[in-house]
């Protein structure tokens, strides 16, 4: 009996869809636009997260030590800093290594090399490059160093020189995040409302039919079932169309993002996370389509 009813419901769902192709097309189009926009926003958010993570990765602070500070003391300080929970890496750069790096970087720049020659002595200071999990922790690390017993060995901390730039960067990052979240919410609410109302309008066209079905004694499964099947067809076709477009356009965009964003390929992200994306698309579509169907059918069937 259950199988027979299920077959009948699927049959009516498919027939209703086919017989009202134009109404179905309008619902599919709106749902497609909704899923496409939200997926694009999701991918944009992932890209911006990557950019933000990259920027954070590049922000660090350097502690420069006074000339003549013994290497053993610097290693002691390095171990102490490594013990701070937020610190992920502490790299020691000796005076000699700093000089070598400078020379290598400016090997074709005679002006810099001549200036270095004229000084005669190595002008560079030994330093520790510190990286934290969260750049917002840098002020705390800096304060710790300034108040520690090692403060007399420290010549300068780069954080104070770059403080304004780092803080500005954090403000930009925070603003970009907020902008994405606000856009997501506003746009999300708008497209959800539009989809919701399009589905309700398509069911409004069948208002009298729903009333009659209810009047002749149709059970809930016969009332809601065909609409749910129809809704599933809308969802499947919309997601298929949406992901096919992404699948064929993202490879081009992926090579561009790889070039611009030092290795982040949006197409690879899409491909490797396709199951997550599909799950989100299905869950979202099912929630919006099924809830609008159930509310509308319930409303009209209750009128008799």
């Amino acid at each position, binding site marked *: 009996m259950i199988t027979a009813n299920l077959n009948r419901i699927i049959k009516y769902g498919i027939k209703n869809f086919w*017989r009202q192709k134009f109404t179905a097309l309008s619902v599919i189009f709106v749902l497609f636009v909704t899923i496409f926009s939200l997926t694009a926003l999701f991918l944009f958010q992932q890209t911006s997260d990557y950019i933000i993570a990259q920027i954070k990765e590049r922000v660090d602070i350097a502690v420069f030590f006074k000339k003549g500070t013994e290497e053993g003391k610097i290693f002691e300080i390095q171990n102490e800093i490594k013990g701070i929970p937020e610190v992920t890496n502490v790299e020691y750069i000796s005076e000699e290594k700093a000089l070598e790096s400078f020379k290598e970087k400016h090997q074709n720049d005679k002006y810099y090399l001549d200036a270095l020659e004229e000084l005669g002595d190595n002008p560079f200071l030994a330093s520790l490059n510190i990286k934290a999990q969260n750049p917002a922790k840098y002020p705390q690390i800096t304060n710790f160093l300034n108040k520690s017993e090692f403060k007399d060995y420290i010549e300068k901390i780069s954080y104070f020189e770059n403080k304004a730039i780092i803080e500005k960067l954090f403000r930009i990052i925070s603003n970009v995040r907020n902008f994405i979240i606000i856009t997501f919410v506003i746009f999300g609410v708008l497209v959800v409302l539009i989809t919701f109302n399009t589905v309700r309008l398509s069911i409004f066209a*069948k208002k*009298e039919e729903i009333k009659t*079905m209810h*009047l*002749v*004694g*149709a059970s809930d499964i016969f009332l809601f079932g065909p609409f749910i099947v129809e809704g599933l067809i809308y969802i499947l076709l919309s997601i298929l169309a949406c992901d096919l477009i992404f699948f064929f356009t993202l490879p081009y965009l992926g090579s561009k993002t790889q070039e611009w964003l030092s290795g982040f390929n949006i197409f690879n992200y899409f491909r490797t996370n396709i199951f997550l994306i599909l799950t989100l698309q299905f869950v979202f579509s099912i929630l919006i389509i099924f809830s609008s169907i159930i509310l509308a059918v319930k409303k009209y069937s209750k009128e008799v």
Partner: protein
Amino acid sequence: MIEFKNVSKIYFSGGKPFYALKNVSFKIKKNEFVSIIGKSGAGKTTIVKLIIGQEKPDEGEILFQGVNINNLDSKILQNLRRKIGVVHQDYKLLPTKTVKENVEYIMEIIGATQEEIERDVPQVLEIVNLENKMNSFPSELSGGEKQRLAIARALIHQPDLIIADEPSGNLDIYNTLEIIEIFKRIHSLGKTIILLTHNKDVVDNLKKRVITLDGGRIISDDLEGKYIL
């Protein structure tokens, strides 16, 4: 089978209440054939709506097979509706389904098997002369054909009770007599029939019980009544 106990139904028109039915009481036994007659606005269609639970009475109670249907749970009400075949005055056909599907749908919701559907649906459509219109949609049918389809839909699952609200409204005399013959045949199979009509010829030829309504009240209830309005 059906009992109305002091039933009143009030509607509002322009903010003012008026009684569609006032203190109506009658009892229809199993296997009875009853005509309910009355002019337009006498309350005939209100009786149909009350029996199938489309409306609730403001006063009194309605019993169907001994059960008060006033406050039925929606699942039980749907179950009850499946036991009643109704030919509505405005047909109430399913516009997106074909003639065959309109009839099949009723069989499907009562849980008939595919074999039963394939056996019974063509037979009933043949009885109402719609066997050649099986794949047409209601919008492609004439008024008379729609009415015959509504009748086929009401009969297909052989319900305990058949209510026909003006079933001859869009039919010519030949088709009217044919439809009444069908109702008589179904009645002879032990079914209860309630016919709501203002067709004098139909009522006088039937020679069955007639309940006459006027202004929402029963003015006569005769076992072998005639059209008296």
